[in-house]
């Protein structure tokens, strides 16, 4: 597979994730959009790693996956706590920190 095509697909996936973060109001879907953005970054890491002929990019993908797993665990726990407190995960209805 060509490197340029992989980078292009990575950019498209990242833009789709950004659009999802900006347009959706459900906290769960928001987290999934962040996961999509991280996967797009991982894809560009792998493509650039193949371009440069090393394995450092693949190692960084492992790091990113680990950090994404940690972020998902803590984020889902926070969402569960928010749902218990407010009864919804709609971000428009959660105004606890509004100034």
């Amino acid at each position, binding site marked *: 597979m060509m490197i340029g095509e992989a980078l292009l697909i990575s950019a498209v996936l990242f833009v789709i994730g950004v659009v999802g973060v900006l347009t959706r109001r459900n906290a769960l879907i928001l987290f999934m959009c962040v996961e999509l953005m991280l996967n797009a970054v991982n894809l560009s890491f792998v493509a650039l790693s193949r371009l440069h002929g090393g394995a450092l990019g693949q190692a960084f993908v492992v790091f990113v996956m680990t950090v994404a797993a940690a972020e998902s665990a803590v984020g889902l726990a926070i969402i569960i*706590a928010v749902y218990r407190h407010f009864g919804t995960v709609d971000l428009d209805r959660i105004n606890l920190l509004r100034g």
Partner: protein
Amino acid sequence: MVYDLERLMAQTHPGERRCGTRRPEGRVTEAYVDQSRGTSTTCSASSPVASALLFVTRKSPVAAALWLVSTMFAIAGMYVLLDAQFVGRVQVLGLRRRDHGRVPVRGHAPQPRATATPWPTCSATACASVPARWGSRSSRCCSRPWPGTGRCSASRSRRRRRDAGNVVAPVAAVLFREQLLAFEITSVLLLAAVVGAVVLAKRRTAP
């Protein structure tokens, strides 16, 4: 233009020659190679984008999660096409312990260690089944043992094939040598995140 299949295999699978194995015969045309390459590229490029679009446009979180899983699978396929089989496997399945962490690539399943013979001895019967057209290669393979060892050089081709299919070793070398501190910090971070998630999600009971 007509491609020689054996030459293509020698270029794309440099470590898969071995003594006594009949290699596939046939010739493929340039149009067939271009068509296969174009088809695989189109499928691998369109499926993650389409799945991601369907993921973002679904209103139900369950449907969105399922389309996100589809996107992850498609991205894992792209990892494999980019020669990152280890990352693709981690993306889909995670590391499994039943095959000792080795990743089967290019259609070769890992052999069990109990039945593997890494250092076969050279014998006349070992090369008796070699076809006649491989005569020169088989004689070169079995007549020159490794210097100072007396072992058959067929093991050299087997080791070369194993090294060519080993996609874990470069990643492991980076993780466990160059980035060892970052690896340890990341593992501690993951452990702290798991503990924090359990604490946050635990239902509080009234005293």
